[in-house]
């Protein structure tokens, strides 16, 4: 599936760059291992060949757009990234005229950890075959169905067709009536715990937080020029990872994003300590859906 999209994407990026419609085209290139892709900016038609599209194109490109203010930018967006861009447009952080958006219908992204766990050695190759992935590690080849390897956010994605685009690649999927997995199951069961258990859970989770602020840096909706929650490097609270300060950071960040988080889960993906931040951000989404008294 994605092979075809990749070819189309390269062709479109090439033409847009060659025709002068855009100054640069933002997408992904193959990263340092078969399990990694990296955001990539093609600046000349010839560079369009380096673009890739596959089930590992997870990073949200929305966060990088403000860097390119004032330039004409072409980019490939999947549905969840398009939601972030739509929110940034709504908040007037971006100018719509600046972008030429190639929307890509998404069949879900694979969880690299699960892909890696499918074979015994380090993954040396990854090929798509219909709805299946052929994962190789040396001579060993495992064949797994993509739906079984999806990221949690993809398994629970309600609308895989971007809501915002200038042109669409792939076949628009009818919006599934109910998403395959309940997006809020984890939040609901967490909220069923009693308050002291909730407090103990977060205390425990946050005890690993190093205040590296990767979660804030990666977040497309954390666009403040100066974040009042970020402690300076030489702040003693940061150096000692003062537990109450860590707690206050996460509490306040949740409050700041209460209206804006689009649930892309980038914060959780980049957290080096595997803190389950998506639980917090899914809660915000639930709050918005079910306004309470």
């Amino acid at each position, binding site marked *: 599936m994605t092979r075809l999209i990749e070819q189309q994407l390269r062709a479109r990026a090439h033409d847009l760059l060659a025709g002068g419609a855009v100054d640069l085209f933002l997408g992904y290139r193959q990263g340092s291992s078969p399990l990694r892709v990296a955001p990539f900016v093609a600046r000349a038609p010839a560079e369009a060949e380096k673009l890739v599209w596959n089930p590992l194109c997870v990073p949200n490109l929305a966060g990088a757009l403000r860097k390119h203010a004032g330039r004409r930018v072409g980019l490939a967006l999947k549905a969840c990234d398009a939601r972030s861009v739509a929110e940034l447009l709504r908040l007037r952080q971006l100018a719509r005229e600046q972008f030429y958006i190639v929307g890509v219908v998404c069949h879900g992204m694979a969880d690299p950890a699960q892909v890696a766990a499918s074979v015994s050695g380090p993954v040396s190759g990854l090929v798509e075959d219909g709805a299946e992935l052929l994962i190789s590690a040396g001579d060993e080849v495992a064949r797994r169905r993509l739906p079984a390897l999806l990221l949690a956010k993809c398994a629970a994605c309600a609308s895989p067709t971007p809501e915002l685009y200038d042109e669409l690649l792939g076949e628009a999927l009818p919006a599934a009536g109910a998403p395959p997995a309940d997006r809020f199951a984890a939040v609901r069961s967490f909220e069923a715990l009693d308050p002291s258990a909730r407090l103990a859970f977060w*205390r425990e989770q946050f005890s690993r937080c190093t205040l590296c602020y990767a979660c804030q840096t990666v977040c497309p909706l954390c666009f403040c020029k100066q974040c009042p*929650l970020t402690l300076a490097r030489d702040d003693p609270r940061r150096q000692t990872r003062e*537990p109450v300060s860590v707690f*206050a950071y996460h*509490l306040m960040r949740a*409050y700041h994003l209460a209206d804006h988080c689009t649930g892309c889960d980038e914060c959780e993906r980049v957290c080096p300590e595997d803190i389950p931040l998506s639980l917090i951000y899914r809660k915000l989404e639930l709050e918005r859906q079910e306004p309470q008294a």
Partner: protein
Amino acid sequence: MSEPFEPRILGLLCSWCAYGGADTAGVSRFQYPANIRIVRVMCSGRVDPLFVARAFEQGADGVLVAGCHPGDCHYVSGNAFAEQRFARFGRLLDFFGIDRRRLRLAWVSASEGARFAAVVSEMTEELRALGPLRMQVP
């Protein structure tokens, strides 16, 4: 260890009403617990939830945000705004397992000294029962 727990409360009081109420309580010699430390702000709408989070971080067990009665805000709608944002913030506190009674919103006019004293007494009792806030691994 057997000493009763004395909560520390930060009071953020609007200059036009609640702060006046606290003053009236003092002038009229209404007794209220010494657990509260008061900071005057121009309006309850000025209170950023970050102030509350920082207060908890710095060791407060509870925060009282008090302002003018609905309709009486000197800046028209600051108190309505405060009510909205703290309702949301309270739900988040709850999600993180922090009892939302640790954050109290109250409307007290400048003449309501007795009411101010009652609010502080009630909150102090409530926090005594809740015990210290523990955001760190004990």
